[in-house]
């Protein structure tokens, strides 16, 4: 397939002009009409000044210069770019749900009921005993989970200083552990691409607060030794944390709670199909086993004997991780998605996600060094530059996979097609992979040519940061 992306080109210098370039106006603030004395106000304000029809065109054009899951395949590994069912938007747009978070429990029974229902769904899906919906993203969920681990150890008078993380883990894991004040102990993989048990045994100690693990791991492999891994960590007094980024591989076939995980986060924008919104909002609920429920963020929601819902603060709560209750509109959509699929649909989602990843990989000319993989695989571009191959793929009307990560695979192309692609689409996607992979060096280096922008100079952007329209006339901020 050949793809030509929309391109509104103003002149030799730019494409669609910025709002401020189209028209702006400066307003003086204060004066006789102002309700505030001059010393409490600013002097002036300059903002774009455009009519509604002009704005409608501006944003419609911008949208046309943007790729999305509704445009075509978006197989970004570890991002789980699923189709976002349209009806969930309508459900979340219910004006009755749009209330203030400080309302009394008595007057917000509907919202509390949905929160409670989603907590229950997520608990059973993950094999956890209790869930908080407060964390607004996956990384916020990780941070919440590690704070819970810390509170648990502190409560037992057990000051621990380390979090163990496999070298191939998501960057957020390392950053999270550091933010919580832990030293990171990086764990190498074994030759097969999984956790090296011997290395883990050598790494655990009385200083181990937790091991953060995703399963299947970042090259799609299931950690077969998970029971022994859990025992090793637990015997050292540590906790086992599950990074939910890859939960789509397990739905209905395995639950982190049953594998010995004590804490987990769910990425509802991945596994439960809420839209990714160009980078967010997501939501990162956290589930814990019974021993840790007292440490969950406040407030929690529970059902009373008479069937109403109430909020309460757990005895040893870590406090709050979001100013209010998290990304409410996202949570509604996740609830609706889970209800739509039910047991059969959830299990089928993971079955088809794994089938699709395997079927796609089968048709690639690139090697896939590690297997058997599940919902995603890391192909290697070998002696080609994975980033160049990816740029060329853009010309074929597909979004390329995640590139050059994880580092255990040279020139990695981490690919996760999800369950939503049909056999025919996977075949076209494979053709795009293969065509790009075998294209000439010249073509690769000059790609893409059919997207709105051609290859963008990343180095110049970082060397001479211009981060606003006010800065465009300047040489540099620094």
């Amino acid at each position, binding site marked *: 397939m050949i793809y030509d992306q929309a391109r509104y080109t103003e002149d030799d210098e730019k494409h669609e002009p910025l709002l401020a370039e189209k028209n702006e106006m400066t307003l003086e603030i204060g004066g006789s009409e102002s309700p505030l004395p001059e010393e409490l106000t600013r002097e002036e304000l300059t903002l774009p000044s455009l009519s509604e029809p002009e704005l409608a065109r501006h944003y419609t054009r911008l*949208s046309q*210069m943007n*790729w999305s899951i509704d445009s075509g395949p978006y197989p970004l590994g570890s991002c789980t770019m699923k189709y976002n069912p349209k009806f969930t938007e309508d459900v979340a747009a219910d004006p009755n749900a749009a209330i203030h978070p400080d309302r009394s429990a*008595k007057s917000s029974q509907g919202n509390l009921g949905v929160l409670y229902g989603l907590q229950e769904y997520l608990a059973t899906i993950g094999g956890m005993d209790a869930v908080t919906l407060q964390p607004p993203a996956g990384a916020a969920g990780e941070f919440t989970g590690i704070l819970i681990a810390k509170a648990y150890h502190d409560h037992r008078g057990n000051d621990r200083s380390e979090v163990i993380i496999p070298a191939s883990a998501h960057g*957020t894991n390392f*950053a999270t552990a550091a933010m919580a004040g832990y030293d990171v102990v990086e764990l190498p993989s074994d030759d097969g691409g999984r956790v090296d048990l011997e290395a883990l045994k050598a790494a655990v100690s009385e200083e181990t607060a937790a091991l953060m693990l995703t399963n299947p791991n970042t090259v799609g492999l299931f950690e077969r030794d998970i029971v022994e891994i859990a025992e090793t960590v637990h015997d050292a007094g540590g906790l086992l944390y599950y990074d939910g980024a890859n939960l789509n591989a397990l739905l209905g076939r395995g639950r982190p709670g049953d594998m010995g995980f004590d804490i987990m986060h769910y990425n509802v924008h991945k596994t439960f199909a809420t839209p990714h919104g160009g980078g967010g909002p997501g939501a990162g609920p956290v589930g814990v086993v019974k021993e840790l429920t007292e440490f969950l963020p406040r407030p929690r929601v529970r059902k009373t004997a008479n069937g109403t819902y109430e909020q309460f603060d757990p005895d040893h709560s870590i406090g709050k991780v979001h100013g209010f209750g998290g990304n409410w509109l996202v949570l*509604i959509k996740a609830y609706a998605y889970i209800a739509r699929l039910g047991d059969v649909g959830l299990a089928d989602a993971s079955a088809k996600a794994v089938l699709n990843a395997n079927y796609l990989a089968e048709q690639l000319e690139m090697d896939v060094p590690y297997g058997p993989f599940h919902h995603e695989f890391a192909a290697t571009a070998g002696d080609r530059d994975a980033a160049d191959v990816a740029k060329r793929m853009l010309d074929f009307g597909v979004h390329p996979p995640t590139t050059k*990560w994880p580092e255990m695979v040279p020139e990695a192309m981490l690919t996760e097609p999800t369950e939503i692609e049909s056999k025919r689409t996977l075949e076209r996607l494979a053709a795009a992979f293969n065509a790009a992979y075998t294209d000439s060096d010249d073509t690769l280096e000059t790609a893409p040519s059919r997207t709105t922008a051609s290859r963008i100079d990343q180095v110049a952007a970082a060397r001479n940061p211009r981060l606003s329209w006010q800065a465009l006339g300047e040489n540099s901020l620094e």
Partner: protein
Amino acid sequence: MTQTDGSPFAPHTAEETAAMLAALDVESEADLFDIPETVAFDGNFGIDPRSEQEIRGELSRCFAENNRLTEFMGRGHYSHYVPSIVDHLSDRAEFLTSYTQYQPEITQGFLQALFEYQSMVVELTGLPVANCSMYDAATGLAEAALLADRVRETTGDTILIPEYLRDGKQSVLENYVDGAGLEVESYPMDDGNVDCTTLDELAGDETVMIYAENPTVRGTIEEGLSEVGEIATDAEALFCLGSDLVALSILEKPASVGADVVVGEADVLGMPASYGMGLGIFATSDRYLRQVPGRLVGASEDRNERRAYTLTLQTREQHIRKERATSNICTNQAWVALRAAMHIAMLGANGLVELAEDCVREATALAEQIDTVSGYQAPIHDRYHFREFVVRSERPAQAVTASLEQAGFAIHTIDDHLLQICVTETNADETDGLIGALKEASQ
């Protein structure tokens, strides 16, 4: 629609599934899973699948269980009227169903919209660097404290915050700074504004950052910002100012009172009351550019020498820098930022300033009216107010809010005899009803 057996969003027909399995030389999908028996799950969650129609009905009935109250509530989460264009254009699937712009050549549209959002925040704060979102105001404040700790040359361990601060903000802040070994300490307020004399005594070598709000959580407009800025400078501490995008359009420009970082509620625009869902501002001076948390969109050029946008300075971020990253944030609130930018563009300078001035006028007028009702005193602070104000009630506040709820109104209880009321254009025409209910509730 194709009839499939499992997920309605997996398009495989039985024949296609069979062909794919055959190509892989396996009999069923189960053969592709490498999960040991001991930890395998039988798939029985007990969740019944429902149709689209059933779920819409179910949730619509559920949300109808929320009492229909007219809310006069704020304290960090506000409702302004959001023009229809914001919903219609931000809901375009090309925006809503895209993700982080890892391939900028094919995602110029969203990148440009985020660049425009950053530019608007730069204009409103007067600070030259704005990121393209934090989760909310609370996490933005917490990230500001961590930035302050990283950039301060001398060691210190204290973050100073106002005595009046939303519990959620304080708790999030404490959670974020604990790992860095920082303490959070409150300074007193004087009639709803910063008590600068005491703050000056508290601030010193150990102070890493001073946080103040304008407007404050009680709705008062802060009159001592320049002095707070000077106190911070003397203590070699960063001055972090909390505000919101509407208030910033008329109140003193943060850059001109010496603010080093601006955080706060960007979700006042683009989002109606959403049960606490937010969008956090994060703006700072160019000195701290390489310490900023979160995504930054910058302008560059493509091969054809046309301007193009891209995520930039990514070596600050977790996917490159891992445990040495400025923050762990990855997924953020990009789509909410898109909505806020659309709302600002729709209002323009005239519309935004008019909205902000009305926030002052309406709060002032309603407070004056309530003050005439026997049993109440409003506003309790002798200050200018923005959107909201505190009311003293002779009757216990809890009893008053309970009576009001019966009458169909929701306001805040903030202390034994203190209420807080917030008014915007979304409820300004129902103030007569509120006054009536307050009269009833005073007995």
